[in-house]
């Protein structure tokens, strides 16, 4: 009950703030509040979402690998529990594989993978923070979000990036041992509230990975990063992700995110 109240208060604040952006800009509340709103803008737009994602994994030598999948998301509460469903189209050895995540704000996500050749549903014991998503430079956490409460946030400055006014916020994990990075600096677009760029520093303080939002579009009233890159500065490897056919508020039923459809996804859902 208590948690729900907090969520409601936050949701109310967010909707109030988004109604009057100039006021928000002037007051720039706390860094944590900006990150909280940014988290909602990036990972919770709409009640649900569907996209076809093309990932290009490019090595330092320029060797390319492709991952193509359909991603479905449904929010059970704004800022709270979420369901994800991923169906792979490419590469051919993982074609028709499906992946389901039940994500909780306060505990580890539940994850299932269906391997069609074996007709087997496996439970995945992966750690969000340390696992690369399908071999890309994105971690699971980059794909589905990291809890705002896991880091301490500080507003460093406000500056323009690529012609857009942005808050520059530093986030330091409260539990360094349980995190893959030592410090993060994010440029948050003041208007759209989504990150334009993020720099991840390793625990020695060296720059590790750099995220950039390369193309941002407004889709059904939601600012959406349709093209993004995560570059590993230390290895020279990078991953570009293009989100195509993004649609929100499709009215996806909660029952879609179940073992039944993991084994046998409905064709209209994964097209």
């Amino acid at each position: 009950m208590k948690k729900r109240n907090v969520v409601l208060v936050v949701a109310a604040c967010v909707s109030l703030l988004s109604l009057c952006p100039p006021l928000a800009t002037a007051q720039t509340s706390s860094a944590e509040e900006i990150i909280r709103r940014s988290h909602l803008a990036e990972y919770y737009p709409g009640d649900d979402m569907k996209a076809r994602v093309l990932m290009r994994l490019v090595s330092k030598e320029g060797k390319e690998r492709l991952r193509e999948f359909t991603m479905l998301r449904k929010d059970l509460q704004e800022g709270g529990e979420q369901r994800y469903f991923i169906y792979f189209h490419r590469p051919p050895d993982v074609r028709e594989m499906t992946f389901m995540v039940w994500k909780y704000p306060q505990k580890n996500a539940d994850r299932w993978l269906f391997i069609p050749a074996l007709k087997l549903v496996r439970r995945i014991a992966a750690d969000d923070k340390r696992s690369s998503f399908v071999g890309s430079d994105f971690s699971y956490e980059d794909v589905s979000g990291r809890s705002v409460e896991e880091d301490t946030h500080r507003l460093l400055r406000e500056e323009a990036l690529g012609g857009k006014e942005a808050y520059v916020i530093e986030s330091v994990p409260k539990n360094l041992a349980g995190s893959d990075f030592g410090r993060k600096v994010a440029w948050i677009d003041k208007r759209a509230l989504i990150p334009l760029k993020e720099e991840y520093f390793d625990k020695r303080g060296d720059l590790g990975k750099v995220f950039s939002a390369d193309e941002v579009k407004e889709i059904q009233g939601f600012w959406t990063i349709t093209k993004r890159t995560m570059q590993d500065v230390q290895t020279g490897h990078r991953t570009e992700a293009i989100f195509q056919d993004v649609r929100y508020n499709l009215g996806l039923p909660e029952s879609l995110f179940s073992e039944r459809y993991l084994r046998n996804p409905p064709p209209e859902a994964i097209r």
Partner: protein
Amino acid sequence: MGTSHFVIPTAVLLFLAVGAPVESFELPVHGFVEVAGGMRLGNDPVQPKDAVLGEGRVQLQYAHEWEKGPKVFVKADFLGDAANEALRAELREGYLDYAPMANLELRLGRQILTWGTGDFLFINDIFPKDYISFFIGRQPQYLKLPSDAAKVSLFLPRVSLDLVAIPSFTPDNVLTGERLSFFDGLSNRIVGKDANLTLTKPKRIPGNTEFAGRLSGEVGSYELALYGFKGFFKSPLGVKDLARPELFYPELAVYGASVRGPALEGIGNLEVGYSDSLDDRAGANPLVENSSVKYLLGYERQLWTDFTLGGQYYVEQMLHFRRFEASRPAGGAHRDEFRHLLTLRLTQLLRHQTVELSLFVFYSPSDEDFYFRPAVSYKLTDQLTAVMGANIFGGRRASTAFGQLDRNDNIYLRLTYSF
């Protein structure tokens, strides 16, 4: 079978050679082309050949789905088998899916059936397995054999029910001396090509239809399931007559349960099953496998980036053990009341998950035998994967599950092009 089967793989290879560079082209048919070879390490006097695996294989699959209607799925393998000097076509899967109601689904035809929580250990999954493929280094998918069956699945808000009827019996592909030598309990020695066994399958009559069912549901993050099976042992665990080497598949019923979910920062699972040997419920007949209870405890956890550790503890308790001992013929192989088995799985992914180093170990402290499955897999491109691995067996006694395979240690290499 006919050489005509080889025309298709050749055509596919030619098609691939021409069509593969066209990246965006959507093929109507998917699958893979594979060459695989495996060799025995060392010499086995009862096996004339050193090659345990030597084959070229094409797998093709095709699906068609009508909008809001039924779906057909076909997956077939075409292979040239140099180790057995044969050309074969195998229908791996061929079924029709139909949903007469929103929460009811039917799957009719040849299908791969599997359930339960074990990792390469099966308690409530009494569906046919191909242990030969497993032991000689074929892809893991070939451990599962298809069944010709009808499956009904009912989905209710909190629980799902699967019911399967299998009218025609498919046995496990077990050790028969072909490719791999094994311990023959009747002659009390290791046999290979010289094995002389007759395996008699249950008659194909309606009364011999096998039934399996699963009731499953979730409580929070935990998956619970109840299982039932009535049919036959999938391995020939009955002897018709001690004087003749004729084995059969005794009647079997299995009842069990499992739970799987998060535990200690990883995933844990627990499964139990009671195997009721219907042809020898009293356990007094030494020619038929006794009833047993099987227990499994498993755990898997990611320890660091792209490294996963898994372990299982499995116990098989023979029921009516005193009667088994009392009725055991003189010179018959020794067995324990409790068979303990431990497994270990280590997996490390490297280079953006394109390289996989893995090791799976079976070790039985009671049988004092082991089986190591190390493998290295490398994805050269998104299409092309090379896998090198080994199957290493050993034990104190020739009569145990892995001890009997001591002379079958082998290494293998597979090259697979997927499309």
